[in-house]
């Protein structure tokens, strides 16, 4: 049964990943990407990584995809289509992909995987404790560093969104342009 | 202000004004198109007349002449005056716009243009308002004929 579901998810993943890069319409690519991300979430669910799966759905499917859709929708008209790349570029990219796939597959098949015994699902509590622990194997430093990074991103977003400073009711840049 | 007082006041401003009260409850002024804008401006800006409320703009086809009738009221003095301007040029009748004096005139003048074909100089958007752009003729003119749609007894 699980094997069956895994294959279904794998097919969805591969097909939508290929469709995502080959679609000529930008928004469709985004939606195929969404399917890919949802498929990954499904695989996480399948191996009982519920928290990770939910994170995958919230952050990637719900957050990032919505933002991408937003930006695409704002600039992209319904009749617009992406340009088709030149044949030479196609060949180069295809070769690079084939090499990548080859390296990937050889690595996987040369490694001996062991089946985990006595597996128990990770609870949110364990994740939380691990994240905030400052002992060995704790993630408090990366956690704090990332929060500083997010703060910086947030301030940057506010500065961009606020736009130009107004001087005597006109944007500052206009005033500066006049001085030149 | 009474009609006589108004007449005496306005009479000196512009040459060739005709005053009449015959067949109307208001004081009527007829003005030549070339002095028209000047007169209207003074009627609004002069503190004794102060006609700041243009409440009716009527396009007219007197058979020979085409013209426009403006009904003006002063919100401070509460007197009413009627200004008429006319031209014999039926092919290309043109007056000055008063939409720079009263903002409401912009719409009313477009209505007059739509139905009488009277053009207004310096109007910001002199296009048909009610009828479609490809409409031929000006329906409220007396010589307008539409055999299909008009029922005339």
């Amino acid at each position, binding site marked *: 049964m699980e094997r069956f579901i895994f294959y279904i998810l794998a097919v969805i993943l591969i097909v939508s990943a290929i469709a995502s890069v080959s679609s000529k319409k930008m928004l469709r690519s985004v939606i195929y990407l969404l399917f890919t991300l949802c498929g990954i979430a499904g695989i996480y669910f399948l191996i009982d990584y519920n928290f990770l799966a939910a994170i995958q759905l919230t952050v990637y499917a719900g957050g990032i995809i919505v933002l991408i859709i937003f930006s695409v929708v704002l600039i992209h008209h319904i009749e617009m289509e992406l340009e088709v790349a030149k044949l030479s570029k196609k060949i180069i990219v295809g070769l690079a992909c084939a090499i990548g796939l080859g390296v990937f597959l050889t690595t996987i098949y040369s490694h001996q995987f062991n089946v985990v015994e006595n597996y128990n699902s990770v609870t949110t509590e364990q994740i939380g404790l691990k994240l905030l622990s400052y002992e060995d194997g704790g993630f408090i430093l990366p956690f704090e560093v990332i929060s500083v990074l997010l703060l910086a991103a947030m301030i940057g977003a506010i500065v961009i969104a606020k736009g130009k400073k107004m001087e005597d009711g006109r944007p500052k840049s206009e005033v500066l342009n006049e001085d030149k | 202000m009474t009609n006589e007082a108004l007449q005496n006041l306005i009479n000196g401003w512009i040459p060739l004004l005709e005053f009449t009260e*015959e067949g109307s409850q208001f004081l009527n002024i007829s003005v030549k198109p070339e002095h028209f804008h000047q007169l209207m401006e003074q009627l609004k800006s002069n503190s004794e007349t102060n006609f700041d409320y243009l409440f009716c703009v009527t396009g007219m086809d007197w058979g020979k002449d085409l013209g426009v009738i403006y009904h003006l009221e002063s919100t401070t003095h509460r007197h009413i005056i009627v200004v008429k301007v006319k031209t014999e040029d039926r092919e290309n009748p043109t007056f000055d716009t008063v939409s720079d004096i*009263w903002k409401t005139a912009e719409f009313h003048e477009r209505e007059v243009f739509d139905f009488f074909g009277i053009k207004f100089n310096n109007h910001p958007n002199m296009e048909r308002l009610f009828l479609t752009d490809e409409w031929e003729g000006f329906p409220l003119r007396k010589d307008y004929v539409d055999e299909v749609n008009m029922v005339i007894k």
Partner: protein
Amino acid sequence: MDTNIANSNLKSEDYFINMGPQHPATHGVLRLLLTIDGEIIKKVEPDLGYIHRSIEKMSERDSYQQIVHLTDRMDYLSSHINNEAVCLTVENALEIEVPERVKVIRTIIGELTRIASHCLWWGVMGMDVGALTTYFYGFRDREMINDIFEETCGARLTMNYNIPGGLMFDIHPNFVKRTKEFVAHFKTKIPEYDKLLTGNVIFQKRMKGVGILSKEDAISFGASGPVARGSGYSCDVRKYYPYSALDKVTFNEALKTDGDSLARYEVRIQEMWESLSIIEQLIDNIPEGDYKVATKAVIKLPKGEFYQKVETARGELGVFINSTGTKNPYRLKFRSPGFSNLSLLNHIAVGGKIGDLVASMATLDLVIPDIDR
């Protein structure tokens, strides 16, 4: 890459929206061409004429009695007052003095019409800002007035009760009783309106400071009625040029000086109270007498120009008749309140959001057949 070209590529285009001719907020077949920047309105251009019936041209062919019937179809929510305007013009021109009874009845029904119109406006105004229940409250009370009209003149909307020289028939025996019932009923309902909508925080936030029209602009744009009075411009025709029995009653002109949508809203609510007071002053002493004076079958107006103003629910309606002494007017012009009020829509909507446009358009209380005549 040249920086100028890069900048011009980033420049956003104007976004055009066709609001109407079929759109819930335009209340009829009005088309607004909106130029917007995101949600912010940059320009509003009304496109009119979808239901233009050329009433002015038709009037040049009709007799004066017939013209009265056409005016019902202009501002159909003030149909009685529209009728009255033409009748008054003809009566003044012919120098007919109508009986006192006619004057009083005309005034009472005129004020009932005004209340009915404001009820409908209140209902759809609530709907425009998203409160759907107001519609049914407004219609519940309007229905009572329509029932009174139906009993008196057989019609609920396009009434045709006035004729040059008086009224079509006398009032129904129940008229006084039912009107009194309505007044008593409606006095308890206006506070309900306030409870449901006026006091609501969201409503106040939607209306306050939205669509501001200064007094100077109101006059310059030829605004009239509640729209102008919300901006502090005292322009009630009933006060300044009283007609029918309006010189015998005392009432206050509803005035607000804020000039925003809320002020226009409050003016109309206040007007409903004033109309109730006018009806109360007149309803108990309708004078006995004829309900019309005899006029000739074919009315010929004397040569000349005649102008009559009346105050409809939307503002100042003017009738201008140029007569050459025949049985038809040579030229008849309706100065409709809605047309002038619409001309200021662009002025008050620019810079606001789409929601603001809808809210301030609702407070203009446009009736499209009145604009499209």
